[in-house]
């Protein structure tokens, strides 16, 4: 981590926070990032590593402008600021570091795209530490034309990991639901919301998509049978199976971290109660026993505890209970309406939706005792938060400018990006795992 250690006098493992602390001291105010393409990024008072993504040689001869995809990926992450440039640099280039330094650039990426005889493209790139004036590595990958966007996301992941010491999430995928008139679609898209593909088309509502831990399957609730039934579907093949179709409603599926079981809300015994079952819905076992609503269960990363929503105290609050059964413990105490808990992959943070003065706001709480939960949006209709697999970003749905939109935000709420700007209503996002 030569680049990071340049910024950090401390020899400890560099972190984004260490970088940001240093940058906030050394750079002062940073202007807001420019919006690229359909990705609108906003952030006030944030500090970011200034990085220039040069034009890649021959990238204009493909269907995707790789350098622009890499730039918007890095900007959305909240820890980089793209510096405009029209210069073309490929991976064999010898950029003049003093020139880039004088433009306030700390890191530089260049590359090329070459069409191969078999129709694939050879995508090459290199990353330079401008401040130190040295190379930080690069790669060469031959990809099918349909995977050029993915190749760009992999470049962004490489840069992110080299400069922050943490894994990037740009090559992961998201799932979400669109509604257009009376047509509903469950879609799978790149983490930047682009290149969406339909996994399920239906004339009836679809809610609550949940990625399996290996990223190969989506569980979801479909109303195609005129009631709520939980299905699981293989993303690559489209093969579906029924997970829970008991009397009454079947909803709120979530996978265990090992992918071997699912939790869901079933009303088969009267009332909405939480059950754990096998990955094909076998042997459903009741976890909660209350005369109240118990729903929206999610596993902790160690698989031992369930966080869930219950109105046992009146309004909905978040509780936790051991999967094996045991004492139920209340988690949220502020506000009279707290729903949709999502846990960060390291188990440190919980994102959830809280109603405050009639507005539904995304909150992030540090689960260790004493931390005060913080609202991190200025919108009023936030829904369905889920964490990126590296725990640094949260995706959620909200209304903005009179439209249903998907947003990503850093955990402190400082950098937000609007994804998937279509005319359709878009809801129920779920961030997938590392899988490709």
């Amino acid at each position, binding site marked *: 981590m030569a680049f990071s250690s340049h910024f950090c006098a401390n020899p400890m493992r560099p972190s984004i926070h260490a970088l940001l602390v240093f940058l906030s001291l050394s750079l002062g105010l940073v202007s807001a990032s420019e919006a690229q393409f359909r990705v609108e990024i906003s952030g006030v008072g944030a500090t970011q590593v200034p990085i220039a993504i040069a034009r890649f040689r021959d990238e204009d001869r493909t269907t995707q402008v790789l350098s622009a995809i890499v730039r918007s990926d890095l900007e959305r992450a909240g820890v980089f600021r793209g510096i405009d440039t029209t210069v073309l640099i490929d991976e064999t280039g010898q950029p003049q570091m003093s020139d880039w330094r004088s433009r306030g650039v700390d890191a530089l990426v260049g590359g090329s795209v070459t069409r191969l005889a078999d129709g694939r493209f050879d995508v090459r790139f290199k990353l330079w530490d401008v401040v130190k004036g040295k190379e930080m590595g690069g790669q060469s990958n031959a990809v099918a034309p349909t995977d050029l966007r993915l190749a760009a996301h992999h470049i962004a992941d490489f840069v992110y990991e080299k400069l922050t010491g943490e894994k990037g999430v740009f090559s992961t995928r998201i799932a979400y639901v669109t509604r257009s008139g009376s047509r509903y679609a469950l879609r799978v898209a790149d983490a930047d919301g682009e290149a969406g593909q339909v996994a399920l088309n239906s004339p009836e509502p679809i809610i609550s998509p949940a990625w399996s831990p290996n990223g190969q399957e989506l569980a979801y609730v479909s*109303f195609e049978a005129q009631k*709520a039934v939980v299905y699981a579907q293989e993303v690559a093949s489209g093969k579906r199976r029924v997970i829970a179709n008991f009397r009454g409603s079947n909803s709120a599926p979530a996978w265990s971290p090992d992918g071997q079981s699912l939790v869901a809300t079933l009303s088969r015994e009267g009332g909405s109660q939480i059950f754990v079952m096998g990955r094909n819905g076998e042997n459903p076992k009741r976890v909660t026993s209350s005369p109240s609503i118990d729903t929206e269960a999610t596993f902790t990363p160690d698989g031992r505890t369930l966080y869930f*929503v219950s109105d046992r105290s009146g309004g909905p609050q978040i509780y936790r209970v051991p999967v094996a059964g045991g004492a139920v413990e209340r988690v949220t105490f502020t506000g009279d309406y707290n729903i949709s808990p999502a846990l960060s992959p390291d188990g440190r943070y919980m994102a959830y939706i809280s109603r405050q003065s009639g507005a539904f706001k995304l909150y992030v709480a540090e689960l260790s005792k004493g931390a005060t939960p913080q609202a991190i949006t200025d919108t009023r209709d936030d829904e369905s938060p889920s964490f990126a697999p590296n725990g640094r970003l949260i995706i959620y749905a909200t209304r903005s400018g009179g439209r249903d939109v998907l947003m990503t935000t850093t955990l402190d709420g400082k950098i937000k990006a609007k994804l998937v700007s279509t005319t359709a209503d878009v809801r129920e996002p779920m961030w997938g795992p590392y899988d490709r």
Partner: protein
Amino acid sequence: MNTIQFTTIALVASAFLAGCASSVKLDDKPAPVESRTPTTSGGKAAGGSTSPTQVASVDLTKSAASAEIGRVVYFDYDSFVIKDDFRPVVEAQAKVLSTDRTKKLSVEGHTDERGGSEYNLALGQKRAESVTKALKLLGVNDTQVEAVSFGKERPAVQGSDEAAWAKNRRAELNNR
């Protein structure tokens, strides 16, 4: 089943309901069926003679509608209590189901658009179960009714004001 028998069951059920902790409320007051006095027509009503400009309107659409059994029960915000206004709907449906044991109903609970989709699904389920519980207490077999929920996913009317929300907080009783 004859009317007397049905009334007896309904009264027993009402008494039971009034005494139990359930939020289902088919309380003991008689349903306010039609309390309006007939409009002046023959000059015999208080008020004296008929005005020469008076036109008495006969509304056939209204009587046709009331001849049909209602299928929708509306709820107050955050409530699962079946209000007095909708007790006749539940009682009439219970009568039909008790008369013909082969008939089946799906009771679909719905909510207004505010709040999360899963919590609203559970709220809708609670409304639907409130209605199926009332039906069963009126003599309907458990196998004749299924309580399901659409949460906020299938609003009856579009809109983000109290008028729209009130029409969407409902349970629909649909034949299966």
